[in-house]
């Protein structure tokens, strides 16, 4: 579904990503994990062309994204970020209806889809006419996820979506996301620095550090067969310092 081929990226002369190749199968819940500055978000943003790699290419659905029109590509891919990026001047319902609106769906279909998504994300109907600043953090992120799912994209990109939430809300949203992903069969690519989250949600985990891919595998494979001392340190399997962190 998504394929990174020998990606390289430098920002301001500093290498951010060096030679990363990885492949995400349809229906997979892929997690990119690693310390900050590992290049996770940069990789994610290359999928919907918010960022272009210096070297290598990204394929979505077997076609290089470079050959796909950015706006059309982005409308086919759901996008959720940590600070939600909800439109402050639009109501919850209007926020959710953004991409269907861009795709010029008929009004009735948009209304039906919005109601459906609010039910799916356990958002009370009464919230439809509220504005984002009137919601709690957890509700805001539910709207963020609903908005990303609105046009029924095959791929969902999530950049640390739950990092700003309290532990209880995060757990609830993680469980709901997992259920939605399982029942819909969507391909999810999530960036996180929270190992707990990665192990709970990911069907496949890609551990990055300093712009390199350290290891890819299922949670079980990572935990039982860490490829290097760095990996086992990051996973907390040894007493050594995890990579990328100050001693």
């Amino acid at each position, binding site marked *: 579904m998504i394929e990174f081929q020998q990606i390289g990226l430098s920002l301001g002369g500093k290498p951010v990503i060096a030679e990363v190749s990885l492949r995400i199968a349809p229906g997979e819940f892929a997690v990119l994990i690693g310390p900050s500055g590992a290049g996770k978000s940069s990789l994610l943003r290359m999928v919907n062309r918010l960022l272009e790699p210096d070297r290598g290419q990204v394929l979505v659905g077997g076609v290089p994204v470079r050959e796909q029109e950015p706006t059309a590509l982005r409308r086919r891919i759901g*996008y959720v970020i940590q600070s939600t990026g909800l439109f402050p001047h639009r109501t919850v319902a209007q926020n959710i209806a953004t991409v269907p609106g861009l795709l010029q769906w008929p009004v009735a279909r948009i209304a039906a889809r919005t109601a459906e998504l609010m039910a799916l994300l356990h958002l009370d109907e009464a919230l439809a006419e509220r504005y984002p600043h009137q919601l709690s953090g957890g509700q805001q992120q539910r709207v963020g996820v609903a908005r990303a799912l609105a046009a029924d994209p095959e791929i969902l990109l999530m950049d640390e979506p739950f990092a700003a939430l309290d532990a209880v809300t995060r757990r609830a949203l993680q469980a709901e996301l997992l259920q939605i992903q399982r029942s819909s069969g969507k391909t999810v690519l999530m960036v996180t620095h929270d190992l707990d989250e990665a192990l709970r949600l990911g069907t496949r985990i890609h551990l990055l550090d300093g712009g390199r891919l350290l290891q890819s595998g299922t949670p079980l494979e990572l935990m039982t067969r860490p490829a290097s001392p760095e990996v086992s340190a990051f996973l907390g399997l040894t007493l050594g310092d995890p990579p990328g962190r100050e001693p």
Partner: protein
Amino acid sequence: MALGLAAALGLSFVSHAPNRLSSGQGIALIELAPALLTWPALLLLLGLFMPPTRRWQLASAVGNAALLLGLLWLAGDAAARLAQDSALARTSLGAGFWILAVVCLLALADAVQGWVALLAALALSLGLALLLAGGSLDQLALMREYANRRELFHDALWQHLQILLATLLPALVIGLPLGAAAARNGHLNQVLFPVLNLIQTIPSLALFALLIAPMALLAAVWPLLADWGLAGIGLAPAVLALLLYSLLPIVRSTAAGLQQVPAAVLDSARGMGMTGRQIFWRVELPIALPLLLAGLRVATVQTVGLAVVAALIGAGGLGSLIFQGLLSSAADLVLLGVLPVLALGLLADAMFKGLVRMLAQ
């Protein structure tokens, strides 16, 4: 409050003169209406010290509005009685009236907020309109000046509005893109704002004068421009100067409004597949709008006031009435020019504030 009280009792409420040129003789309020109005007025002033409960505020508002209209009527009535001697006689509103009126307005503004304030303003306007239509103010010097120069006044008011429109529309057309560009481009930002700030510091009269020579030259070199109305004096340099002044508030507020759009909002807008144009019109502009309107409000109010000075270089407008009045030391003619300017400024201010409040909901 003591001031208001002194004004109510002592200072001249209206001043009467046998003709337009001689100076008038003051008549105090107690001479006009000894008990009728002074006592309720006293009570109202006391009302200011009452606890600010809703009921007291409402009573104070109604009372002050009624008092204000009553004072006006009283002045008009006195003028009508005094005018019986001769058609040349002039009765002007005196210091006593103005102070009382200001006290009333302040008390009124203090008592009402939000929608009630709007209602109070409407009620006052309606009362004023009734007094005017009923002819009870006709004999006041202000209205006599108006009656004598009805055409001139209407022309001046219309010209003033034209200057306002001819300034603000181009200022928006130029200022919005300039502000949008400044919000994105730091270099432009660093060049643009010092220039606009510099313009703002030039005294208006000096700027008008500075523009006379180059504009006259342009008109002389290209007669076509002169045919379009471009000249050293008159409307063209006035509008150009006012335009330059109004650019700063508009450009600055546009840039500030656009810069306060959160980066995450822009990122998610792009990530959802909005085109650059869609992001501007559907996301950036709506979020920037309250600040932008605040800038437009400043520009409008400022232009209403500065356009008065533009009369000095022959642009016309209400300023021409004011300067005519000043030159012939006819205070009421000055007033006839000042009051509409004041009203226009307040109206524009209230309108934009209302718009911003509506948007905030």
